[in-house]
């Protein structure tokens, strides 16, 4: 059992948990993830590691309440425990001095991007950061990000804060010579970023989040097409060369179980899961 030490609401439906998991805390690296199971009959869900503290023996992750499992997770409080956590999983990010790195993060993935930025900055890189969300209410970690970045931009889909959409990225890249781009967030956003960086010839690393079950290379549900080859995101990734990824296939595969997910979420809400949380 893994005890929740800190719980914070960063934005509506976006929550941060700091959890006691001393062995994972000692080994975790940026770019890796965990798989957790909330309760006995629960699903295994992957979440990216957004922080770790070996001395305190804790790891941090941030999640968006999108379906049954994440909603159920969101009802747990400080002092409660999570049934099972496996990690760290996945290949760690490549962190070294690349020169100037453009970091583009959207939605809930702003959280693990902060960890990346810390590591990249420690390695001596110059950091240009863009964070984005659908609307301004969903942004978080702005101050922390700004403090670590040499250049910092905000964008929202509706223009309620900062730039409207990602179109301005082209102008940024016309002004600055960037050596590497890393991007984490919704698939469509990463796809857009990749299209732009490709025309500038900037190597771009994306974090892919296909459906996973075991997270250790045994089921193949997380298979993605990268440069015409089938890769397993859980062990070969989750980070890949964004210019080689078949995003359309990824989007289709992420939606494989949409009807079942809706059913699961609906049933749970109707049975009162939201209220007492322990269903």
């Amino acid at each position: 059992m893994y005890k929740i030490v800190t719980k914070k609401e960063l934005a509506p439906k976006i929550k941060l948990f700091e959890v006691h998991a001393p062995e994972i805390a000692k080994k975790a690296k940026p770019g890796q993830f965990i798989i957790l199971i909330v309760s006995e009959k629960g699903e295994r869900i992957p979440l990216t590691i957004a922080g770790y503290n070996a001395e305190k023996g804790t790891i941090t992750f941030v999640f968006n309440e999108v379906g049954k499992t994440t909603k159920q997770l969101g009802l747990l409080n400080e002092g409660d425990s999570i049934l099972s956590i496996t990690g760290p999983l996945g290949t760690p990010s490549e962190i070294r001095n690349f020169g100037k790195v453009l970091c583009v993060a959207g939605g809930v993935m702003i959280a693990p991007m902060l960890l990346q930025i810390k590591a990249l900055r420690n390695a001596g890189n110059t950091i240009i950061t863009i964070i984005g969300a659908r609307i301004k209410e969903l942004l978080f970690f702005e101050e922390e990000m700004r403090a670590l970045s040499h250049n910092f931009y905000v964008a929202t889909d509706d223009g309620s804060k900062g730039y409207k959409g990602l179109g301005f990225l082209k102008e940024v890249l016309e002004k600055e010579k960037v050596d590497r781009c890393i991007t984490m967030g919704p698939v469509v956003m990463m796809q857009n970023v990749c299209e732009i960086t490709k025309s500038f010839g900037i190597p771009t690393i994306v974090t892919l989040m296909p459906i996973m079950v075991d997270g250790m290379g045994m089921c193949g549900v997380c298979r993605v097409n990268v440069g015409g080859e089938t890769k397993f995101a859980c062990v070969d990734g989750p980070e890949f060369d964004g210019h080689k990824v078949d995003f359309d296939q990824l989007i289709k595969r992420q939606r494989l179980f949409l009807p079942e997910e809706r059913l699961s979420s609906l049933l749970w809400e109707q049975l009162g899961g939201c209220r007492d949380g322990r269903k």
Partner: protein
Amino acid sequence: MAESKPKIKKEVVPMPKQRPEVRRRNFNEVALGYTEKQAIEEANRCLQCPKPQCVQGCPVEIDIPAFIRLIKEGKFDEAVKKIKEKNSLPAICGRVCPQEGQCQKFCVLGKVGDPVSIGRLERFVADWERAKGVAIPKLAPPTGKKVAIIGAGPAGLTAAADLAKLGHKVVIFEALHSPGGVLVYGIPEFRLPKSIVQAEVDYIQKLGVELRLGYLIGRIYTIPELLKDEGFDAVFIGTGAGLPRFMGIPGENLGGIYSANEFLIRVNLMKSYAFPEYDTPIRIGRHVAVIGGGNVAMDSARSALRLGAEEVCIVYRRSREEMPARREEIENAEEEGIICKFLANPTRFIGDDKGWVKQMECICMELGPPDESGRRRPIPIKGSEFLMDVDTVIVAIGRTPNPIIQRTTEGLKVTRWGTILADEKGKTSLEGVYAGGDIVTGEATVISAMGAGKKAARAIHEYLMGKNS
């Protein structure tokens, strides 16, 4: 026996089973097991040959005639003990060993009729013992040595039990949240009830073995870290062959196409058959095609049927004779209404506009001369392509070794098939590191994994005690 030839009873005592029309829609165990009377009747068929042939067919050399004699005499307790001298998992092996290719293949009765049903008798006494309650043996005094076992499949569980009995402190690191390896995530409930695997795991824990679940070795700790930082004196690797193989043909990443491992992990480990009570979903269509001809294909096909598929068709590129699945399970599958399409192989998948598979193109095959495996090689017949309407495909064409340990352990010698190089005792190229089971042999059997675990345990014990003096 010399004076009057005993009358030979040619027919095996049939196994009581759930009726096919009932069992094809439930996940309960198909074979119900012999009663005491049936077991004794079957045991009485054994001729007690002075030079028993059966023993050579058993990978762990169980004294078969001896345990069968004890059953004849009604001494079930002693019969189990006899088996357990060599095999620590008889309730499991009795159910899943491919006996027709092992012990029973050599039984002399097979020449005139049915061989003695050694597996069913093995299962009978093991079940009899479990019902009565398994006694915990006396452990050797603590040696002060610590051994890490990686993987809680049959190889790891066996090695753990033997090492614990010898007085070593044993910790099993298992990556999944449930122990058992293929026995829990692969082989379905209707063939091997999970409660039987759980009973074995409980027994091993009672021996003092510590079980740590959710530990993927290679990520949380590497093997050198276990030896240097975590205080282990030796390591046994039993990580199995769990990496699914795909065919590499167009359309394979369409929706509705599962690897057998994904399908079986969802159904068995995550219990998707009980979705939405359990959270992990599975979608099964009306027309299911399963590619392959081994146990994994049979298990997938029969699970698909139980999940409500209208029609399940096994597509295999060779003919019935070459099918590697257990005979009994092929018969069970056909009784349940599963169709086998032989001498055909998929060439591509065709999807609908939502990205789901709707058709599968196959090509007909013919058998050529035998290949390295000794089976006749299938050769495609030009221009014989045909289409099948399918909405679910399960790919069960084989599994390769789990690669994470090999990738993260410097100095560990690996073969070109990705298996770990180990001698017959399980010793690898690294000091204090042993390996056994599917990770060394590639996909094999439960009994061979168990046997490898036993041999390695003995070798590790010798190594540790040698280090002591």
